[in-house]
């Protein structure tokens, strides 16, 4: 029984440490988005804020982070139960309606407008009221292989093959174009051309990587396609409009590419990480992917095969022009906060130009007003592109900030991937989505 005794002693020792205080209790507790550049940047500005001369002890900021996995489920439980473990919490455009009942509105003052501009502030509004300071903006780039496209543009024989493939699969005779002037059909033809199954001579195995896992974020990536065909979640009267020609075109195009073998066979279980791995391995010619991947895909360290030849443009155009899904991350005030005055002071400071610039310099991705972004253009040229795309093509679907927005994405993910995988027909998928959305979004 010696082992048992040892175990008991060890247990006793460990239990005796249970009561020890953890982190020192700071005065304003901020819950941030864990693990990425957002965290690094928030750390830097929090440090700067705390170090400002004359900062009262009671106003100093301490950061906490849950971990990524299940972040929003945990936050949901905390907020619904009225947790006061944090004064300031993370909000995202797509979840703002869900958390608004547990949050206080804030008045950021006129400075915020000058720093971010109205369209960006709106990503943190729900029913016209401001719930947060925008910190980071996410949207999508069309990543493509410059070397392959250049070669295609110069090769007459390849152009003929390209036209033949476009005619056969898309029913149109198309010629290769520069990615910045692609329509979705041009992209589709390129994706088909660069797929071994369609074109055995293709230098890559696949022409694109579609993210088709049953996951809500994948719907955000997808929906810019129907959007550029004029699609929307609902019209002005609140009628659900997903059963539209626009959504049909988009859904069918994805399925056509997947079925033709233009995207990896396991695309139905692909998300962010898998897409990066496929494109990074040099086996996919294009990929519609989050801007956050730009760093990895152009880093010679992390993606040696493609770093030098990865190009980025805004998503292709449809009849209604180009469209790029945007959503913001930001910070807002917990209704159950213990230190609301201190928290409000920090949030207001965060909305000032100096704080936003410091955030950008520390690696964050804020979308800033043109005059402001000019001041960091030398250090962060990508932010110019981000602000440019967001301003020109950025959109938020009608209803996508409501309390049920996340549930709508979940529903779409389930039904649309059901169609792509051949589990149900397009009509069924759209009908179920429409019924479900009507139920979720009814006033």
């Amino acid at each position: 029984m010696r082992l048992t005794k040892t175990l008991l002693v060890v247990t006793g020792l460990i239990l005796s440490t249970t009561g020890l205080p953890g982190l020192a209790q700071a005065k304003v507790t901020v819950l941030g988005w864990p693990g990425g550049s957002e965290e690094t940047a928030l750390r830097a500005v929090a440090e700067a804020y705390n170090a400002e001369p004359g900062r009262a002890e009671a106003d100093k900021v301490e950061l906490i982070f849950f971990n990524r996995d299940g972040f929003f489920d945990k936050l949901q439980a905390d907020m619904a139960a009225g947790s006061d473990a944090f004064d300031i919490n993370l909000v995202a455009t797509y979840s703002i309606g869900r958390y608004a009942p547990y949050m206080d509105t804030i008045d950021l003052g006129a400075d915020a407008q000058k720093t971010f501009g109205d369209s960006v502030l709106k990503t943190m509004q729900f029913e016209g009221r401001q719930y947060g300071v925008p910190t980071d903006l996410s949207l999508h780039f069309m990543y493509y292989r410059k070397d392959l496209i250049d070669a295609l543009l110069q090769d007459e024989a390849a152009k003929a093959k390209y036209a033949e493939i476009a005619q056969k699969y898309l029913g149109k005779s198309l010629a290769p174009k520069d990615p910045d002037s692609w329509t979705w059909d041009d992209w589709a033809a390129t994706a088909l051309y660069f797929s071994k199954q369609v074109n055995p001579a293709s230098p890559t195995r696949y022409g694109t990587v579609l993210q088709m896992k049953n996951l809500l974020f994948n719907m955000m990536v997808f929906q810019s396609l129907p959007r550029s065909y004029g699609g929307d979640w609902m019209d002005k009267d609140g009628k659900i409009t997903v059963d539209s020609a626009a959504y049909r075109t988009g859904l069918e195009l994805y399925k056509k590419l997947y079925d033709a073998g233009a995207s990896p066979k396991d695309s139905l279980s692909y998300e962010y990480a898998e897409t990066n791995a496929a494109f990074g391995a040099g086996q996919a010619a294009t990929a519609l992917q989050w801007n956050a991947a730009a760093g990895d895909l152009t880093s010679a360290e992390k993606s040696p095969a493609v770093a030098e030849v990865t190009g980025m443009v805004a998503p292709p155009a449809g009849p209604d022009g180009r469209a790029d899904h945007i959503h913001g991350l930001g910070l807002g005030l917990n209704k159950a906060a213990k230190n609301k005055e201190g928290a409000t002071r920090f949030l207001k400071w965060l909305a000032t130009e100096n704080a936003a610039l410091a955030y950008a310099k520390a690696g964050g991705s804020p979308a800033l007003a043109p005059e402001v972004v000019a001041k960091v253009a030398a250090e962060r040229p990508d932010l110019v592109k981000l602000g440019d795309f967001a301003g020109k093509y950025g959109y938020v679907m009608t209803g996508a900030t409501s309390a049920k927005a996340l549930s709508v994405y979940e529903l779409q993910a389930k039904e649309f991937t059901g169609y792509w995988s051949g589990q149900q027909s397009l009509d069924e998928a759209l009908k179920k989505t429409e019924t479900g959305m009507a139920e979720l979004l009814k006033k």
Partner: protein
Amino acid sequence: MALLKPAQSRLFLTPLTGFLMLFLGFPALVNLVYSVSSVSFETLRNPQITGFGNYALVLADGEFWRSVSFSGRFALVTALAECLIGLFLALFLAPLLRAHSVLMAPLMLPLMVAPAMIGLMYRLVLHEFAGPVPYYLFLWLGDSPAFLSVENAFTALAVVEILQWTPFAFLLFYMAYSGISPDIREAAALDGAPWYRVLLWIDLPLMRPTLAIAFFIRFIDGFRVFDNVYALTGSGAGGSTTSLSIYIYQAFFKQGAIGKAVAASVLLFLASLAVLTLINLMAGTRRRA
């Protein structure tokens, strides 16, 4: 048979019942109320009692039945395979393991890794461009199947589950097998019984309780499978791998349909209680017979 007086038995059961009442009594009560209420995360503290609508909703939901069927098939296939392979390994490798007990280590190792982590790892292992399995298949055979497509996802997930949990059955069987006194077997061998008769007439009957329990536990665990499936396919492809646990989790957190999720769990609870009681009754009849 009854060595303990009823009063004593109850005393011995008190810590268990008390602990469960304390920790699950209140949550269970709240859940029962939720299951007959219209409730969301905003109204956790004041649910509106609306009757049995949630139950009707669940029973009429095709997705619910699909997930029940997935879980049932998954549990049956994995539990059977795990027990058969586990039994074979336990009996066949027993002489080897008796001689070198350190060999147990690699056979137990898979149990130590969290299923969610295993699921995550297989995302890498099976990835067409970054994973070793497709890499070697392409290298040697020139092609690699789509492991997680609609057609193959069930098989792939079952294999992942079986590879991780066969050691569980194996461990229980090996211990039960080692517990059988060698005298009995030697006596049988002296009588000239060939090995398969010893197996059929002596080993297996003696191991029957353990066989039943291992199958039973693995069936339950297979039925409620969540972590590895969720990490690997996220209920895809196209919802074809939604287990009942995933169905309930998604209803609960993703759709915020708390009443519906809880109602589905209550149904699950009642159904498995009925099955267990039935098994118990049958076992009881046999014991008396």
